């Protein structure tokens, strides 16, 4: 009975957003989109169903033997070690899934009113459903294929929501940047998946996620470290850890609720969750532990420092969120998984509330002043050391934009240009050889 509820709950939780996506998107393709109120109703119903299912599964899990369960959904060429679609259900996955769906339900209720009469209303909700689907897949992934699919859905919907107002150039430009950084993470994750297949002959994540160090013994030590480093890099790109933090303030171009749920709350914690699941990998060697801790600590320091000089409410909030993300990563590197998870949920809920009420800042501060009966305390003088360099560093967000352009974007551009000219030259060879014209 308990096993049935567990299995059924997880499947229903996944099926609800998938079904909703089909129901929302199809009429739009046929040129007869749903009315706003229908979209609201359908979305709320599906999110409620999904949340209820996860909650039921969670209760069943807690009431049962609390052993991780692998649900095999199917495969493709799986006999020859091909692709397999597995879910891995345990406390972490159910917890994160419940949190994700619950939070998205709240945000969809907010968005339903906030985006009323917006031309991109349908598009927004379709992307939000993709996001929930992606999060659930990431949370429940039992094989690299499922994880990767969820990871991609997350990234794609995220970049498209940053570029939601595509009639202006800035959101599109920034959406593109976000996508570019996500691709770096995706490439790392894909490499990890391929290497895992290659070395272990299996893509089961239960190997990496749920087991202790003993499960990793099938792999050589350097293999484990390689895969761990790749996964840490993937998580770093998704969670805007250093040196990838530059995209985070740029992602504030979308509607407030999407900025809130992605960069204040859930999406930015997806990397943390990945590390949490793969904590046996992180814990595997001192090198990976130190690498993780260093990334987390540097990010937290960077974000706390940058946040001090920001003068707009959304930048302030995203750096506040990022500082805690950095600390959560440190906690994971220390093996404090339960604390990390609690900290993560706290950060998610608080930042979401703060982001959703960010436009209320004037009202709130006015109220604060009235309660205090005086002006708010004046800003502090920043340290004057090094000719104010610290302040400049904070104001310019660590110069990451310039540095990334210089050391990442420009070399890539040059490489692409070189490849393009090579390609063009290669194309000219047959023409010269056969004496043909350019073919206009």
């Amino acid at each position: 009975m308990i096993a049935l509820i567990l299995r059924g709950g997880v499947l229903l939780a996944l099926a609800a957003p998938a079904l909703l996506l089909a129901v929302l998107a199809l009429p739009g393709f046929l040129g007869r989109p749903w009315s706003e109120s229908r979209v609201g109703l359908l979305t709320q119903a599906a999110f409620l169903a999904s949340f209820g299912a996860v909650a039921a599964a969670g209760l069943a899990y807690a009431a049962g033997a609390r052993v991780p369960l692998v649900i095999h959904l199917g495969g493709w060429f799986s006999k020859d070690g091909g692709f397999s679609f597995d879910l891995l259900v345990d406390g972490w996955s159910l917890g994160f899934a419940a949190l994700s769906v619950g939070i998205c339900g709240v945000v969809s209720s907010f968005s339903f009113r906030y985006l009323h009469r917006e031309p991109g209303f349908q598009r927004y909700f379709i992307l939000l459903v993709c996001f929930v689907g992606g999060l659930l897949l990431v949370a429940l992934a039992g094989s690299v294929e499922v994880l990767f699919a969820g990871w991609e859905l997350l990234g794609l919907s995220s970049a498209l929501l940053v570029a939601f107002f595509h009639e202006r150039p800035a959101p599109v430009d920034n959406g593109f940047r976000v996508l570019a950084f996500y691709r770096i993470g995706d490439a790392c994750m894909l490499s990890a998946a391929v290497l895992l297949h290659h070395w272990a002959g299996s893509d089961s994540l239960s190997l990496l996620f749920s087991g202790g160090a003993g499960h990793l013994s099938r792999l050589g030590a350097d293999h484990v470290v390689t895969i761990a480093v790749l996964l840490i890099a993937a998580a770093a790109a998704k969670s805007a850890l250093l040196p990838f933090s530059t995209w985070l303030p740029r992602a504030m171009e979308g509607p407030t609720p999407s900025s809130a749920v992605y960069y204040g709350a859930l999406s930015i914690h997806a990397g943390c969750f990945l590390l949490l699941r793969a904590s046996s990998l992180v814990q595997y060697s001192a090198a990976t532990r130190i690498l993780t801790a260093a990334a987390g600590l540097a990010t937290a320091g960077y974000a706390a420092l940058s946040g001090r000089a920001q003068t707009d409410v959304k930048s302030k909030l995203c750096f506040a969120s990022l500082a805690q993300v950095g600390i959560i990563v440190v906690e994971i590197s220390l093996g404090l998984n339960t604390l990390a998870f609690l900290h993560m949920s706290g950060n998610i809920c608080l930042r979401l509330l703060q982001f959703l009420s960010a436009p209320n800042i004037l009202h709130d501060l006015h109220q604060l002043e009235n309660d205090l009966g005086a002006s708010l305390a004046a800003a502090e003088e920043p340290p004057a050391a090094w000719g104010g360099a610290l302040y400049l560093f904070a104001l310019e967000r660590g110069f990451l934009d310039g540095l990334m352009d210089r050391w990442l974007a420009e070399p890539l551009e040059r490489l692409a240009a070189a490849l393009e000219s090579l390609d063009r030259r290669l194309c000219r060879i047959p023409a010269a050889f056969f004496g043909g014209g350019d073919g206009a």
Partner: protein
Amino acid sequence: MDGAAPDARLKGVIERLAELLPAQGPIGIFIHHNTLHAFESQDFEQAVVSAGEKLSCEPFLPEEEYRREFQSGRILEQDLRWALGDELGPDAARAVFDDLTRLELRIRIARYGIPKAAGASLAWLLQETPVLRRFREDIPNDARQALRNGSSARDLWRACLAAARKTPAAPFVPPAPPARHRDLLLAAAGTDTDAWVNPVLIRLLGAFLDQGLARWSLPEASRGLYACFLHLYANSWASLCGRWAARLPDLIREERRLGLSPSASLERSLEVLGVGGEEAAGFLEATALALRGWAGMIRQLEERPDRVPARSRPAAVMEYLAVRLLLERAALSYAASRLPGFGATLSELRAHLRGLLEPPPLASDEERAWQIFHAAQLCGLTAARIGGLSAAQAAALEAELAGFDETSRRRVLQSAYDRHLRGRLCDALSARVPAPTPSPAAYQAIFCLDEREESFRRHLEETAPDCETFGAAGFFGVAMYYQGATDAHPRPLCPIAVKPRHYVGEMKIDPSAALARWRRVRRRQSGRLGQLLHRFNGTFLGGYLITTVAGPLSILPLVLRVVFPGLARRWSLALPFSKTPATRLLLDRRPEAPPIGAHYGYTKEEMAAIVGNLLRGAAIAGRLAPVVVVAGHGSTSLNNPHESAHDCGACGGGRGGPNARAFAQMANDPAVRALLAQDGLRVPEQTRFIGALRNTCDNSVEFFDLDLLPREHEKRFGRIAADFARTRRKEAHERCRRFENFPLSGGHGAALAHVEERAHDLAQPRPEYGHASNAFCVVGRRSRTRGLFLDRRAFLTSYDPTQDEDGSILESTLAAVTPVVAGISLEYYFSRVDPSGYGCATKLPHNVASLLGVMNGTQSDLRTGLPWQMVEIHEPVRLFLVVECAPERFESVLERLPTVRRLLDGRWIFAACLDPNSRALRLRGTDGYRPWTAQAPLPSVVGDSASWYRGRRDHLPIAEIIPPPEAALP
């Protein structure tokens, strides 16, 4: 140049260009103003076009939007005929060729339009769509008839092509090349240096102007932007801002070594950039407009440092430009170094780039024929007739079409659009027999003249036919700095043009000192906690504690406030310390020095003058009822940086409750009444004034100082309170018809609950629609408009021409009212016709910057104007002012009000005079007054307002609401 000191010359240039910058102050105090105030000396129709070119904004709505209004009957062909006839004058009947008059040709083109197509898009239309296979569907019947008898569409096209080829294309006048290096660079090489410079500048300006968001303050900010920039960016780390900034620290160090003042630095930058003296004004103007929201805020704080009492900064546009040009020099020299084949200095850069620009091609034969082809279809000219045109005739037709370009068509359509709405009010006023005034009235109520009070007054009069309402500027003559008992700072409550001299405070009079103390301590505690949260939210350890301890708990307020806003509101109201304490206004003159302003409180003489002016101006004196309610208004909403834009314009974007309360207290004062009686204005002893605050968002009404109400008035007030309670439900219902997510079938109670929830919902971007329906302003007796359903479109100011012998009351009324209402009307106009140019576009991505304004995302220009959610249902028309007086009186008053006159003469607003003794209306035009002749009968409906509006969402025509027979009895 002419020997003037360079410094003074530059100052003059900057003074002139600063006029062009948006004049919107800090967003917490939102004051509606004419977006194009700098152009007011021009005609409206010229001004919008020239401003549009300068600021890259739209002058009018898109053509299609006007054409849609023909279908709904909002514009009639008759209106178009008038508008064009007016514009063309005697030329209207001149023939273009044969019997085709200019008027006829233009009417058809304006009405049906010529699809925009050129170059590749025209080629596509011609080849891939059926435009040449059949005639247009949307052409007038007579034209279709004429064409049917001729040959095919393709023949017509060939004839048009042949006609176009008969004459050479008109020589093309290339537009002046842009003044800025950046614009040329972008056009010629595709490099945008603003994309490098702006983010750095935006962060710097945000930090410089910050009013309390950042934890760290900008070092050296007190020395001004320029000195602060030189200090900060001389650091060699600044070169990390991007490759373009590699030379920036060196540049700045050199600047520092030279020890230049901001103006000298500006001179030097102009020289380095090769901008000569004559050209400097245009160049600097374009440079300042590159980030005009931020530059405008600098300007506002330069002129009115008192608008940010918390942290004022030595802001100056001159320093801003000096900094900007230093950054641009760094960026341009890097961009120039990457430009192939350019090795000269920056001063040569523009000449080099201009050489790279290609002149746009002449109009092709097809493009010219396309215009003729459509004109021929609209006028029913067959291929034979077009073929028969001589070269001169074809040229005349083409010139006529070129002279009626898109901007001219939109201008004419706007004119027709405006005119039709004016006609509706004229029809209503000239058809309506003045309503009998209840005499004596059971009670009276004075409201703000705001058009949102029109519906409230109408519903109140329907609820209580024996009451009388008046309209006056909502600060009720009480211009003051006001500080409530729980306010941290005083704020001015009066029109922006007035600088208050009086300070008024508020005192708590809680019956129990212990309770008061408890409340105060609770407030202080919650304030301190909030401040800690605000300060340490983003820090390492503080943030850690907050997220781990308070974080998981925040799920409760999150779900409650987002998913159940109505419930959250009711619970928060139930908290014991959320109750506001009982208070009194400290209105009487006190000897001590006030915190701000010249006097602490008012003397009795000052009070008597204020009360006397209002009672005489609104013509209430002499007919006072036993109770007079004085109701100011304000609006509260959450998650709305533009909250203050919904407050009272006459209170300078504040809430008018304290003004109403102060007025009532003054008018109740026996000493004031004695002074008034000496002056010949008798206030009956039993008359009591009651101050009130009406919330235009959640429709609550709060009455002040009821504990002071004499016993004999209690029963009377009980009735008034019941009337107001019914009225606010009914008015909420009328407002709700505009909200799509309130069902049209909803009842009164549901409507009130709906508007209450809207005001307290974090997720609601449209807490109310504000002034979105404004169109008219009527200055006259209420009897002229009482019983008319004006659909919340009219500012209503009470004025009795029979009590105003020398026109002085009219003069003071118009002087106070017109600038406020014209400001509202024009701000809405511009934000509606170009929502992302003049307005600040959709609210959804807005981000509060420096507590002064909003940006899109984290590094955009400050967005000024109104958001789309506020203006989306607005009809962008110019205000129509109807004054109940003779034209001669009006003109003589205008003589003394040059600013109002300038608005009228430039057609920024329109006006008409309503005869005090008859129903005749005379419209003020450029060539004198024209009598109005009724165009359409006034619709009427028996019942109440709901009988007219029920089940309908859009703007409604004006109608007469005839009370059912039983209700008409007093």
